[in-house]
């Protein structure tokens, strides 16, 4: 271990402050040692919880009543909220992206606040947020080619002058990196802060860290989820507008 970002090393285990990703077991795959870490376990718990909730919601909505009550009310509220966010961000292009943005919104939000349930948030691992950023990058690229065609794409690259193209390419490549690093570093900073409070203050840290949890897990997590989805929508919307 110790080869990747924030993977804990054997020597640092057992210290008071502990916010590292820990390996659980490893196996050999074609000469490469593959580690199963706490991130995988937490990710699995998050995904399974969301899947079970989705199945229950689906079952409930199959026999929906005219006057909503209880769980049906809650599900309709979530869907309404997500639809409102996507329609507010993308306007007339919203129709095709309601599902995708809603899915990543629920996934990132639940991942961020899973620190409250005693898990290490999966989004505090760069291996989780980078794929999310790359998905956004792929969507931008595909939609640009689809709506502006190849000619518009090349025209966009050589925006003021043709020799400006390298700078435009760097600007395009920076999008997924900055998106994923923003989410990762925000959740990581919350995780580190909570680990410091619990690790260094020990018996002093009773009751009042709950207020810090509200800020670092709930508030910061919700804001970063909103920002990630909002920026994704803005970039895709930009790619879809033709002049």
């Amino acid at each position, binding site marked *: 271990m110790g080869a990747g970002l*924030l993977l804990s090393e054997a020597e640092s285990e057992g210290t008071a402050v502990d916010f590292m990703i820990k390996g659980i077991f490893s196996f050999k795959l074609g000469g490469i040692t593959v580690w199963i870490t706490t991130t995988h376990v937490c990710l699995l718990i998050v995904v399974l919880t969301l899947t079970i909730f989705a199945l229950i919601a689906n079952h409930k909505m199959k026999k929906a009543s005219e006057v909503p009550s209880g769980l049906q009310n809650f599900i309709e509220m979530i869907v309404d909220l997500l639809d409102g966010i996507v329609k507010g961000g993308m306007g007339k292009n919203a129709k095709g992206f309601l599902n995708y943005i809603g899915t990543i919104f629920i996934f990132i939000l639940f991942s961020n606040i899973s620190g409250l349930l005693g898990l290490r948030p999966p989004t505090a691992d760069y291996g989780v947020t980078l794929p999310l950023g790359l998905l956004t990058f792929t969507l931008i690229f595909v939609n640009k080619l689809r709506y502006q065609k190849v000619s518009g794409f090349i025209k966009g690259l050589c925006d003021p002058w043709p020799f400006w193209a390298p700078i435009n390419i760097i600007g395009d490549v920076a999008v997924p990196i*900055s998106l994923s*690093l923003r989410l990762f570093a*925000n959740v*990581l*900073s919350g995780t580190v802060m909570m680990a410091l409070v619990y690790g260094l203050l020990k018996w002093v840290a009773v009751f009042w860290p709950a207020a810090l949890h509200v800020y670092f897990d709930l508030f910061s997590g919700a*804001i970063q989820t909103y*920002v990630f989805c909002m*920026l994704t929508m803005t970039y895709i919307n930009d790619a879809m507008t033709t002049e």
Partner: protein
Amino acid sequence: MFNQEFILGCSAIGAGLAVIAGIGPGVGQGIAAGHAAAAVGRNPGAKGDITSTMLLGQAVAETTGLYGLLIAMLLLFVKPLV
């Protein structure tokens, strides 16, 4: 040339210097919040829109500070120089 302890100590100093990057976003977020407050004072009806725009802008501005934090984390825990 240098022993490991010296490099680790210098890395810790470097990590401390890297998180000075937090000054910039702090000033920027304060300016954004101040202007948002002024905007709400001028047009209280648009409070919801102003708040969401302010939070979005602040979260984007925060990124530069977080890059500093990341560099500090890399220096302290990944130890690229050792």
